């Protein structure tokens, strides 16, 4: 899969994206238990080679996607499940996370919000940027920080894609190949 590059990083809806190809991916299914999100994440990330873990950045980014599914997708309803497909190598991390919720309805609005936020950052206008530090909706509670996707859209350099219903998200990150071994004189 070639690395996709675009100037403005956006979250897309594209059910036909190759990022939804589950062939060769591992699968796990979890109950929506908020207290277990970091534990679920560890079960998944243990399959990743140390080269791509970047201390715990990969773990953190995966936990955000699972948290969104558990909390915003399934509203912490223990009767609802989160399905996770994942695949790792020294050069890639791929993840598909599906919940049983209504879908990320504010996706377009989020893209617009992020565009304005990036504009502030580009101009180093931090006064104005204060308006765009958190993307909160009527669904948000006091524990929501509304900033997870700003980092996610930068981290997942292979893209963040939703299905049509927007309750299933696929992400990919590609890592540069590192030269290994001793240099021969």
């Amino acid at each position, binding site marked *: 899969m070639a690395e996709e590059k675009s100037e403005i990083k956006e979250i897309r809806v594209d059910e036909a994206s190759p990022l939804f190809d589950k062939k060769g991916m591992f699968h796990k299914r979890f109950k929506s238990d*908020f*207290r277990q*999100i*970091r534990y679920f994440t560890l079960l998944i990330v243990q399959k990743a080679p140390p080269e791509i873990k*970047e*201390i*715990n*950045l990969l*773990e*953190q980014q995966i*936990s*955000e996607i699972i*948290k969104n599914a558990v909390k915003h997708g399934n509203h912490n309803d223990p009767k609802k499940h989160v399905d996770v497909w994942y695949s790792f190598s020294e050069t890639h991390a791929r993840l598909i996370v599906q919940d049983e919720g209504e879908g990320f309805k504010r996706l377009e609005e989020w893209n617009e919000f992020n565009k304005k*936020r*990036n504009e502030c*950052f580009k101009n*180093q206008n*931090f006064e104005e*940027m*204060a308006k765009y*530090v*958190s993307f909160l909706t009527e669904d948000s509670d006091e*524990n*929501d*920080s*509304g*900033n*997870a996707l*700003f*980092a996610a859209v*930068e*981290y997942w350099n292979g893209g963040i894609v939703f299905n049509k219903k927007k309750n299933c998200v696929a992400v990919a990150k590609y890592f540069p190949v590192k030269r290994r071994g001793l240099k021969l004189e």
Partner: protein
Amino acid sequence: MEIKIRRYESIYIVDIYGDMDMYNANDVKNLINTMIKKDIRYYIINLDNVDYIDSSGIGALIYVHSELKKRNMALRIVNVKGSVKKVIELTKLIGFFQIAPTVKDGIAELSRMNRS
């Protein structure tokens, strides 16, 4: 996560130990709210012993930054490094936050403000 507080003259240093994540980020917000009520004006949040931060932890830092700014109180976030630095960079908040390299640097910057 554990939080300890030290004081240097009128500057309060909040040392955070452990992970700043979705399960405990609120503790930081609550603590700072209590300190604001005591009219403490100068804050350093020391992340030297934090190796993991998620969006909730970032949210807590944003909250503290905004609450203090509103009241003309001052904050420096110090010892931002490793994956914590990477998450702040990915969220594009370097520049938004007022970051100083070390506790000592933070104290120096806040002391100058206090005098002027």
